[in-house]
């Protein structure tokens, strides 16, 4: 019988294998162990067999089979045809005439970007489009310090901070920033724009919650995007809405594991010139146990009696804010940005701040420039009084304008001008940006350089209002500032006079 034969064959095979096995030295011990542990326990043997089979299946399984669920199998010929047929879009769509004109209209300054500049068109204009608000650009003291540093350190730092890129001047400038803001520590990044998009993802991770103002700048938006955190927006500068959102988050995440929570907002908003209500935000932050990341890129060196930013403006210790991010490239006329906060906040960024770890350090002379600028701000606070006086003089004139209003804080030297809603209704303005560009052109023709608020709409989360952006400087006298305001006012009227009214 075939069945019997098979059994005999199996028996003999098993016997010969076991005979061979016994010949291996030490096999007796293994056998005894297996026998004794499996005695009267077929369940256990079965379980282990299952485990063994699972392990075999696991190791033999294709590694990425789950990723190719909707993979369509194609022959080489088909792939070749598909490759041949595929036509990509152009890498970058060529500009149309309007956009090309916009590119061509980017002003080119001949020489130093001081308060009065010469443009490549040959026109000399007053410069109200640059962050040189305290007129520190070209300051003799700063200039000499910068030159001295170049003569000591060369220009570039030639390496990331972690690899011999940290120079003595960086350490000193970090100390100066900490002292200036009266916080325990600070860290310098090589570019202001990149600072906050490195700071946020260093702390906020997937699963954390960020509650952000809807008018924050692109750099902050990108930082949030990269962090992969859950984002909730609140209406721009609306504290009731902030509380509503915080309450909602509280309700939504009740009973879930506690994750990090951050409120992110700007001090002086670059896109509006208005100021965040810091006392109220702090109150809510403590109430709902959030940490506050405050982007003071536009407010450090601008707001406050001695330029220490929003905390000075509201007379609140800067240590109340968990992270203050600022720019050294605005009124300090240097370059780079910084994040100030507790010792731990700073230390953590030195190893986890992407823009710090993976980028070359800031050139030494720019760090030195920032230090020198801060020392000037501290030693001569009267420049801020002068800046305020110029700001008020300018506002006094433009606030009387018929067609435009300013959403900016009355004391902010960063002034936005926006078309009145009723003007937009009564006048045939198809393209606000074009209208504003005409105003800018008219101003330049009359000797005042201002700018539209330029944005990249495709990169913004929310649409940004079209505005004119004007930056007051102490480099111009009060009289000149008033004259510039008059030019802006006249330019708006003139351009508006060409716009037909809508007949109702």
């Amino acid at each position: 019988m075939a069945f019997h034969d098979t059994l005999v064959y199996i028996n003999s095979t098993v016997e010969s294998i076991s005979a061979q096995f016994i010949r291996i030295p030490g096999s007796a011990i293994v056998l005894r162990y297996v026998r004794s542990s499996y005695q009267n326990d077929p369940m256990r043997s079965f379980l282990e067999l299952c485990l063994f089979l699972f392990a075999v299946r696991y190791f033999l399984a294709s590694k990425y089979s789950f990723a190719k669920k909707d993979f369509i199998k194609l022959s080489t010929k088909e792939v070749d045809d598909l490759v041949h047929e595929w036509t990509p879009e152009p890498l970058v769509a060529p500009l149309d005439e309007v956009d090309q004109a916009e590119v061509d209209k980017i002003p080119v300054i001949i020489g130093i970007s001081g308060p009065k500049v010469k443009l490549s068109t040959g026109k000399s204009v007053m410069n109200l489009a640059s962050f040189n608000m305290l007129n520190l650009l070209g300051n003799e003291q700063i200039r000499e310090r910068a030159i001295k540093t170049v003569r000591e350190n060369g220009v570039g730092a030639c390496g990331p901070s972690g690899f011999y890129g940290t120079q003595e001047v960086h350490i000193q400038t970090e100390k100066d920033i900490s002292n200036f803001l009266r916080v325990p520590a600070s860290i310098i990044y090589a570019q202001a724009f990149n600072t906050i998009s490195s700071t946020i993802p260093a702390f906020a991770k997937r699963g954390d919650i960020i509650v952000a103002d809807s008018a924050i700048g692109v750099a902050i938006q990108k930082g949030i995007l990269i962090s992969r955190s859950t984002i909730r927006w609140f209406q721009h500068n609306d504290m009731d809405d902030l509380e509503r959102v915080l309450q909602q988050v509280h309700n939504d995440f009740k009973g879930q594991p506690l994750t990090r929570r951050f409120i992110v907002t700007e001090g002086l908003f670059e896109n509006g010139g208005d100021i965040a209500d810091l006392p109220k935000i702090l109150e809510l932050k403590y109430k709902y146990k959030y940490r506050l990341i405050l982007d003071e890129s536009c407010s450090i060196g601008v707001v406050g009696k001695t330029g220490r930013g929003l905390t000075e403006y509201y007379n609140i210790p800067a240590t109340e804010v968990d992270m203050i991010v600022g720019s050294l490239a605005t009124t300090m006329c240097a370059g780079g940005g910084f994040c100030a906060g507790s010792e731990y906040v700073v230390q953590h960024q030195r190893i986890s701040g992407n823009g710090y770890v993976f980028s070359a350090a800031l050139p030494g002379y720019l760090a030195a420039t920032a230090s020198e600028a801060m020392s000037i701000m501290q030693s001569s606070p009267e420049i801020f009084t002068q800046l305020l006086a110029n700001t008020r003089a300018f506002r006094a004139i433009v606030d009387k304008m018929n067609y435009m209003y300013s959403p900016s804080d009355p004391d902010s030297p960063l002034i936005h001008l926006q078309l009145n809603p009723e003007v937009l209704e009564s006048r045939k303005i198809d393209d606000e940006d074009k209208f504003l560009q005409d105003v800018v052109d008219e101003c330049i023709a009359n000797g005042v350089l201002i700018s539209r608020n330029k944005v990249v709409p495709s990169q913004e989360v929310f649409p940004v209002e079209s505005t004119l952006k004007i930056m007051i400087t102490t480099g111009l006298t009060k009289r000149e500032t008033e004259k510039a305001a008059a030019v802006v006012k006249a330019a708006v009227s003139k351009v508006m006079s060409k716009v037909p009214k809508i007949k109702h």
Partner: protein
Amino acid sequence: MPSNQTKLASLFAQAQAQIQLPSSGSATMNSTSSSPVAAEPPAPSLGIINYTSGASTNNLSPEEIKKRSMQFAPISHQSHRYIPHHPKGQPLSDPVEEEPPLFFLLTTYISYLILIIFGHVRDFFGKRFKKEKYFHLVQQNGYAPLTSDFDSFYVRRLKARLDDCFARPTIGVPGRYVTLLDRVTKDHCQTFSFTGTTTDCLNLSSYNYLGFAQSEGQCADAAEEVIRRYGTSSCSPRSVAGTTDLHIETEDLVARFVGKEAAMMFSMGYATNAAAFPSLVSKGCLIISDELNHASIRFGARLSGAVIKTFKHNDMTDFERLLREEISQGQPRTHRPWKKILVVVEGLFSMEGTMCNLPVLVALKKKYKYYLFVDEAHSIGAIGPNGRGVCDYFGIDPGEVDILMGTLTKSFGATGGYLAADKAIIDALKLANIGYVYAEPMSPPVLGQIEAALRTIIGEIVPGEGEERLQRLSFNARYLRLGLKRLGFITYGHDDSPIIPLMLYAPAKMPAFSREMLKRKIAVVVVSYPATPLLTARVRFCVSASLNKDDLDTILRACDEIGDLLMLKFSSGTGMEHGEKPRWKVEDVIRKGVMDAKRDVL
């Protein structure tokens, strides 16, 4: 010994000054000394900046000459130069990547295992018994910990042990020598205090390929002039009112240098990549990226919203397989065709020392119609007979590459980055690139440095010097690499690459190597995870034109000693040419090095 070395160097400097061969000057064979002491050439006016000749070492005091030679060494012998030449049109052959003996791999694994177990045990007890030290890792007062212990585990438990090897503060110019501020730690690298003394170390760590990190000479002179004329900033984003005539001029010069119609510059190299991708690709597009691309590329790619796929480092077969698969399959789920495919590679990979296989990439581009983005952060200035990057090295028309990106930090001693492409593309990016519209522009003195450096390389100012720098860099890179290989070390990368990673494997060898080198007054960079795979911890040498052969010999001798000390010479010789065996005597390596470094591979 290093002190002897310094003396030697200054002796050389004096000797050279006497025979009118200035250190950073027209010390080349073609410019004979027809213009001696008095005849200082008139300042060339090639644009906005008035350049000094830079070579005016004629009336310098010995101290001044010594100072300059500390930043840029005089060449020891004119034979220490090399012009790289890659056979045109030939694809790049992959360098042999040697495997270490199994024993070292095993001990490396065990090392990490021990570190991880110790770390977890310490964390476990620390969180319970030493709360004040672990406050930032535990939930308190209703706040979640600021950093999670899992995320920071590596940093706290592994990197913290060798923190003295990182972020060593410096003073002065990071040139041929870098001056370190000495520091000591009493609490195992938690805090450091300065002793007040400094150490001059031979610099194998800075990205100073062509040696333009100098506080004297035409570059620093240009920077100073620009500070006087332009100040330190242009105080406004480029598209608003931050564009000066100097920005335009430098951009034109960069474009001309890399062989493109137009270029745009940004104040930070990292941010150049971070801002570039969102303006080039978006949802529905595909980015195909080398797996070892730099963090900035990954950051920018993620910002763009495009799908990102990676291929094995420099593996062109894997790359083509991925391309075919992606083009034929289209977008995930919908199978719609991709809008466009952007392939991103680095010219010279900063941790590997390998170059991208540009000839193959360009050939495949014709068939598969993708766009090619080459990040020349490390290769621009450092690679190619004219220093114009990988296109120059392979003899490929830069027009074949759609976007050439690069940084100006490395070879030019400046900072920031550029994108170079057709004028139509650059113009469109002026409205679409967030780095151009929102970020602060490049600081004008940096432009001065860049212009002077570029014009030196091109030969428009200080004739002969640019050539010398390029050829010395190539020679130094090949000489040091060959020497290390012959001593028996495992190195990664291509022969012409100025980045030479020397493999250490075991984590404990990183601080040991770095500290031993520091004892011998040589500054090096050790890297491991996360910049490299966990197993392949390495020390990365960045060779510079500012070193001369004597410096390299000092380095070889130091490596020889430390290699024996730390058992690092485990090369099997498979990476060596001409059937040579590894583990030579260091004196033999030095004796035969000059001839053999210039020898071509058979």
